[in-house]
């Protein structure tokens, strides 16, 4: 789960990590009130969406007067921001963060991630703040500093000093600050079951003070049950409404841009089904995992959610029943067909437990299910159906 920058900064503040003075605003008058409260001569207005690359897209602006704060906020709220992370449809800005402007002397990159190779939390840092770490990694991998944290011992001071020294922050004043920031960030990461915390940039401002100018958090969905405070920060408006609806039915759905709707059990098989469609020259409309115990209701919900996508021209149902049973799935499909009044071609591939019974139920129903013998056959039939329609 992701959160907004202003929420991330509030969280950091509660851990004693330095962030610029600021607050969220939902309107121009609120924004002006926040700016007045902060004081000073210069403010930054930052669009709050769950995607990076806001600066280049016009989602970060500097204001020299309270009036300008209001004007910029008014422009920004309601605008659709398209960045390299939002996709072409972009995201509508609904709130902004008003902050004191900082006089930046230097920018660093600092993040905490789960390193899958060492299976530990790892610090990733670089002198090149403000640019994306992937770019730095590609251009000059030697400029990336990493330090792995032992989960039993926690993050030791000397490790932080090593990172600080490698970043060139080897005078006492800045090193002390950096050690403190790293230790507090790690504590926050561990306490809140984060998967990633990225501070980019960690800026050096007047008085050689280090401060987090931007902050990105990603939390472990599987651990939210023990962090009600974090769960409350979830902004459903930043998520695809259909994905939210699907998760409410315990279905895993991700929208794609093709025209063959997929309903599959198991994440790996769901991906493989999409791959098979692609290899046959077709385009999957979605990823959908119905999970283990797919009841008739669940199958019906899955069909409905997939068909809400107006691009979908055919459905491909691929179920390999393990704990599940093909006869139940078949009954679920018939129920879905009749209750939803489906008028799209449905290619069905059943395999595993009670497969003969399942196939017989579909056949006996006399409904226009196109049965497939295996994965390849299913993908071929689905693609042929869609292409036939276009011809």
């Amino acid at each position: 789960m992701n959160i907004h920058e202003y929420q991330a900064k509030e969280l950091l503040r509660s851990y004693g990590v330095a962030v610029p003075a600021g607050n969220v605003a939902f309107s121009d008058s609120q924004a002006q009130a926040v700016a007045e409260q902060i004081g000073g001569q210069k403010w930054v207005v930052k669009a709050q969406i769950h995607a990076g690359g806001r600066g280049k897209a016009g989602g970060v602006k500097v204001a020299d007067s309270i009036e300008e704060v209001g004007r910029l906020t008014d422009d920004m709220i309601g605008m659709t921001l398209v960045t390299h992370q939002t996709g072409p449809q972009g995201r509508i800005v609904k709130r902004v963060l008003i902050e004191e402007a900082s006089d930046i002397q230097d920018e660093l990159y600092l993040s905490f991630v789960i390193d899958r190779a060492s299976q530990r939390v790892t610090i990733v840092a670089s002198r090149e703040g403000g640019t994306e770490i992937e770019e730095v990694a590609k251009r000059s991998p030697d400029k990336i500093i990493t330090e792995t944290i032992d989960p039993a011992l926690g993050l030791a001071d000397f490790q932080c000093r090593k990172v600080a020294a490698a970043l060139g922050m080897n005078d006492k004043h800045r090193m002390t600050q950096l050690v403190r920031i790293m230790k507090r960030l790690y504590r926050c990461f561990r306490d809140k079951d984060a998967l990633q915390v990225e501070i980019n940039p960690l800026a050096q401002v007047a008085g050689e003070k280090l401060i987090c100018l931007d902050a990105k958090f990603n939390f472990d969905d599987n651990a939210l049950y023990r962090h009600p405070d974090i769960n409350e920060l979830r902004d459903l408006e930043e998520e695809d409404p259909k994905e939210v609806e699907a998760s409410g039915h315990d279905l895993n759905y991700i929208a794609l841009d093709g025209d063959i709707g997929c309903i599959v059990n198991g994440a790996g098989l769901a991906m493989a089904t999409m791959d098979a469609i692609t290899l046959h020259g077709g385009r999957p409309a979605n990823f959908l995992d119905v999970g283990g115990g797919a009841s008739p209701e669940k199958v019906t919900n899955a069909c409905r959610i997939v068909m809400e996508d107006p691009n979908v021209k055919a459905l491909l149902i691929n179920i390999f029943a393990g704990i599940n049973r093909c006869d139940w799935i078949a009954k679920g499909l018939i129920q879905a067909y009749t209750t939803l009044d489906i008028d799209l071609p449905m290619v069905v591939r059943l395999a595993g437990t009670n497969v003969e019974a399942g196939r017989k139920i579909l056949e006996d129903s006399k409904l226009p299910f196109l049965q497939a013998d295996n994965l390849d056959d299913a993908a071929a039939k689905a693609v042929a159906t869609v292409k036939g329609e276009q011809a």
Partner: protein
Amino acid sequence: MSIFVNRQSKVIFQGFTGQHATFHAEEAIKTGTQVVGGVTPGKGGTTHLGLPVFDTVAEAVRETGADVSAIFVPPAFAADAIMEAIDAGIKVAVSIADGIPVQDMIRVQRYRQVRWETEGDTCLVIGPNTPGIITPRQCKVGIMPAHIYQPGRIGVVSRSGTLNYEAVEQMTALGLGQSTSVGIGGDPVNGTDFVTVLKAFEKDPDTDAVVMIGEIGGPQEVTAARWARDNMKKPVIGFVAGLSAPPGRRMGHAGAIIAGEDDTAKAKMDVMEELGLYVARNPAQIGETVMRALRENGIS
């Protein structure tokens, strides 16, 4: 022969009296698995399915000589249950649950390391988020449908469950059976990696070739392919799911996310091919690719 589990394995179920554990214990017994009891804290001294129930894994091991545990404990308590199994001296602990917090698994892996360094314990943790492990007709520890597996000489290791079934069905259609099938699970931090399983298959005299089924996200497949090139004589057939997956999205499995260029299915399969593995580019051709590998290596 086989790897990790066989007809001599003595299996207990943690969370034994729960609905899922009960169902899958019955299934395991039906397929010839030696189930010797189970653990449900607070229910020690009773019997379930005609088998003894214990309060702790330590007691269960002491009383039954169990060496394998099927852990049917919900995600919030699963990490603790895995560590209890390690502490009790279990040799193979299989954790089925999907949804264990990543940092819990980081602690489990650290605990395994400490136990290995201080006590010399070597417990294999399979999963989490796995259908489990099966040696056909000998020992089934997990939730997979036993009837699709046939005894044979192909080793199978995969991150995904249903894709494992898919590959097995394709092999069955071609008359190929399995020595052992291992699901290492779909989580970003898992107990057993591909390399550990490949190592065991390479040593197993009854395995002729290994099918390795990966997916997008993480460096595991490439590490394993590199290890296979340097250390294996047996052919390895690889497939990686997620060719059409968009970057930055978790595709169902917590670990299936393209975080960088090396994480994509294409990049992984390209490296596998460069390293001399047999690669099935199409998920529908895993079985055929196994046949080709066997033929080209003079194995029939």
